[in-house]
């Protein structure tokens, strides 16, 4: 697929060409530089680092919705709509992280950058929530509770799941309880969001994975099992399958966290962040539009 800059406008591009705005290219380049700087310092990655990025993920998701409803200058719009909103939301804490690493090179103890980044994210997220309420209006406030209730319920369920994993995978508890739990949490939020989407929007909201699970259940038990109809059955199986994938990834990687904690924390954090981002974005689009 040809990639061309859309400086001359969409009309000048050949059919099938992917448009990338100059602002997005600049943002991507700057983000790559920040990532390279952070990587060069080889900083320790505590398990809570992934959690510190949760408010920034929420910030990115809300930013994309606010941008879709509001009016940013045209040349900046790609930076604030998807997927640019998420890159922007990751770029800001990345710069802060790189700056803190740079300033603390000569110190004996590192600043707890994960705590500062997380706290900063909570502040940014609070403003974004207020902006979303102002932009969308008070009519959808009740529905917006879903955006709080689903992650909280998923968090409680993750706690129970993590406790049960501890019975058969001590490595999970010893070395990757938080990042592993975060991976399960992300898978759970993504599963709930996908299930909610196809419950509300119908077949159009199916993903390849949910279609596959539904196909298998409808082929094996088209009439349901012991009083549970096929729809309920495959929705629950879909959720269980999502959680199973998260649990599988977390328990497989956990033993390596003893010798390579940075790599394992980074991988599990990435898995959890992608799952949470996809799920929260789906919920947000469903609730706010």
């Amino acid at each position, binding site marked *: 697929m040809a990639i061309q800059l859309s400086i001359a406008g969409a009309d000048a591009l050949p059919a099938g060409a992917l448009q990338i705005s100059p602002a997005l290219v600049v943002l991507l380049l700057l983000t790559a530089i920040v990532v390279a700087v952070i990587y060069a*310092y*080889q*900083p*320790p990655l*505590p398990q809570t680092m992934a959690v510190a990025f949760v408010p920034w993920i929420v*910030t990115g998701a809300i*930013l994309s919705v*606010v*941008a879709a*409803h*509001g*009016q*940013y*200058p045209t040349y900046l719009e790609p930076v*604030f709509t998807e997927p640019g909103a998420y890159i*922007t939301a990751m770029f*800001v804490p990345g710069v802060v992280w790189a700056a803190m*690493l740079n300033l*603390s*090179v000569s*110190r*004996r*103890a*590192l*600043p*707890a950058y994960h*705590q*500062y*980044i997380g*706290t*900063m*994210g*909570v*502040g*940014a*997220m*609070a*403003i*974004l*929530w*207020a*902006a979303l*309420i*102002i*932009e969308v*209006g*008070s009519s959808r*406030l009740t529905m917006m509770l879903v955006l709080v209730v689903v992650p909280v319920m998923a968090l409680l369920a993750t706690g129970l799941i993590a406790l049960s994993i501890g019975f058969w995978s001590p490595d999970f508890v010893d070395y990757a309880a938080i990042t592993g739990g975060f991976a399960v949490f992300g898978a759970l939020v993504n599963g709930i969001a996908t299930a909610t989407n196809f419950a509300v929007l119908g077949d159009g909201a199916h993903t390849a994975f949910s279609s596959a699970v539904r196909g298998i259940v409808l082929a094996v038990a088209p009439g349901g099992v012991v009083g549970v109809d096929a729809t309920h059955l495959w929705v629950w199986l879909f959720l269980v399958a999502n959680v199973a994938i998260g649990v599988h990834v977390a328990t497989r990687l956990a033993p390596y966290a003893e010798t390579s904690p940075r790599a394992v924390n980074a991988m599990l954090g990435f898995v959890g962040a992608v799952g949470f981002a996809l799920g929260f974005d789906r919920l947000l689009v469903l609730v706010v539009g």
Partner: protein
Amino acid sequence: MAQGDSFATPAFAKVFLSFAFGLAIGAALVLPVVRDDLAPLASGGSGAVRGVLLIGLFSIAIVSMGLFGLYRISR
């Protein structure tokens, strides 16, 4: 990095400053969009709009207090 994995205990002032910095970043990100909507709020606005503003302020206050509480508990 030479320091290993030891982290300094964060000072409350710095944590609070991080939160304030986050508020500023959030405001900078959304101000171009909500600027027009804020004008009616500044001039009194309708009851519904005032309610929305109050909810926003309350949510920020609750998050701030929750953060402070968590910090106190963790020490």
